[in-house]
């Protein structure tokens, strides 16, 4: 049994974003974003806080109105008939916005009712999903009493209630411990292997590398790089020589180990030779670290 009904058949891009812009006064949070997301992939928007990831996320999930440009999800524009698009997307916001005073089951129940699911179908789906996110034993506990990881899993279950064709996750593992984070990653991979397209935002380098098929790196409201993690790393050079210079480290990128070793041998400073990661890509493209 396919757990996720394939809502939309066909090939090609599930999301098309063209010149999407959001201005807040004189500040441009998103500055003319062009991006296409393929069906069935896990796509990650990576960037530092304030890069415009969440604003992009909110525009795609219709919580924020774009100032300009357009975006469509499976052909439906996000500025047109919103009710139609809302029916077919699942959204897991960054903020824990479960109703703390309701039980796990009631939170899902409420979501099902908001989507006008008939009673029997609703009950069945809730049982399925609670088992799927491994919360079946906690169905009647208040959501407010759950740990961070459990809340996040419940939010994912909630977003899946109405059988969406694409799942949006905003910083899905922010604030979680390593164990809980791995659980969420496993869950996302499992959903994806069963046919779900996933778009997530993250400021964790390792999350983007470990989880995403393709990554778009954002900075100052713009997309500054796009590709698979391997492609992006290849672009800057797969091996890094980091010259330690009292906190003001210098980075040199090389296509292979031998050139890297040669350079390292000629360096007067202490050096570290390692494989490149997406953080290096970001540093190389912007001259800053992701945290700066």
């Amino acid at each position, binding site marked *: 049994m396919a757990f996720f009904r394939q809502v939309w058949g066909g090939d090609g891009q599930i999301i098309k974003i063209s010149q999407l812009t959001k201005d807040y006064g004189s500040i441009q949070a998103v500055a003319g974003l062009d991006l296409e997301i393929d069906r069935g992939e896990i796509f990650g928007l990576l960037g530092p806080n304030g890069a415009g990831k969440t604003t992009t996320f909110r525009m795609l*999930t*219709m*919580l*924020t*109105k774009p100032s300009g440009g357009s975006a469509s999800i499976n052909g439906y524009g996000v500025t047109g008939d*919103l*009710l*139609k698009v*809302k*029916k077919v997307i699942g*959204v897991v*916001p960054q*903020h824990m*916005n*479960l*109703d*703390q*005073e*309701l039980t796990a089951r*009631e939170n899902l129940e*409420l*979501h099902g*009712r*908001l*989507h*006008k699911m008939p009673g029997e179908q609703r009950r069945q789906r809730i049982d399925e999903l609670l088992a799927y996110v491994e919360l079946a034993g906690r169905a009647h506990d208040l959501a407010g009493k759950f740990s961070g990881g459990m809340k996040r899993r419940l939010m994912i279950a*909630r977003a899946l209630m109405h059988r969406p064709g694409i799942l949006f996750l905003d910083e899905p593992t922010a604030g979680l411990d390593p164990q809980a984070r791995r659980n969420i990653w496993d869950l996302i991979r499992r959903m994806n292997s069963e046919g779900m397209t996933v778009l997530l935002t993250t400021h964790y380098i390792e999350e983007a590398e470990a989880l995403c098929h393709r990554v778009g790196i954002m900075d100052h409201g713009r997309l500054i790089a796009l590709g698979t993690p391997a492609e992006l790393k290849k672009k800057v050079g797969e091996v890094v020589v980091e010259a330690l210079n009292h906190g003001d480290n210098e980075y040199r990128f090389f296509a292979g180990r031998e050139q890297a070793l040669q350079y390292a041998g000629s360096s007067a400073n202490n050096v570290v030779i390692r494989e490149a990661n997406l953080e290096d890509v970001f540093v190389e493209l912007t001259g800053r670290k992701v945290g700066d």
Partner: protein
Amino acid sequence: MVVLRRNFGKFFSSRLVGPLLYLVAFGWGLGRNIQINGGNYLEFIVPGIIALGAMNTSFNAVGVNLNISRLYYKTMDEYLIAPISAAAFVSGKVLAGSVRGLIDALVILALAFLFGARLAVNGWFLLVVLLTCLVFSGLGVVAAMVVNSHEDMANFSTFVILPMSFLCGTFFLPDSLPKVFGLIINVLPLTHASYLLRAIASGHGIIPLSLAVLAGYALLLFAAGVATVRTVR
């Protein structure tokens, strides 16, 4: 939309217990004072307190809750993401607030009878209470959408709700106030609510103009609520 309304009624019923207990305590304390003041004043003041209670409970139930839900818990996002119209959302919130306001009014009414107030309560009386609840639940939605912090929400209550509590014919008739005050007070919805309730309770029947003003406010604030929910994105 019906589903949403039913849903709200069901889920919020658990939360009604708190304000109910609070109001019982409040009503008893207040009731004792009224008895000292004598019977006539009791019958004068009860319709005013009912209007006041309906206003406060409805406004706070919707305004404060929704403001926190929008800005702090972000639970409002769940409704904004759901495929429901702004009108359905506002209906649900306004009805939920009105249910609380009505229960509040009924508790005060019951207490008033226990203290021996003789009031003529009929369908019109309940209709006016309901309208009052609708007006101030609607105002609650608008305030929750427009006001951008919890502190300012408290300020809104202090500047808008609190003056109305005292001035709008609740505890005394505004006739003795300077004329300018009288004019302003006559524009405010709570004045019409307390006049109407008092007239009906004392057996004088309804005041059509006041009823129209209340209904007008209810419709206007509902529409304003829908408009503000639409533009909050």
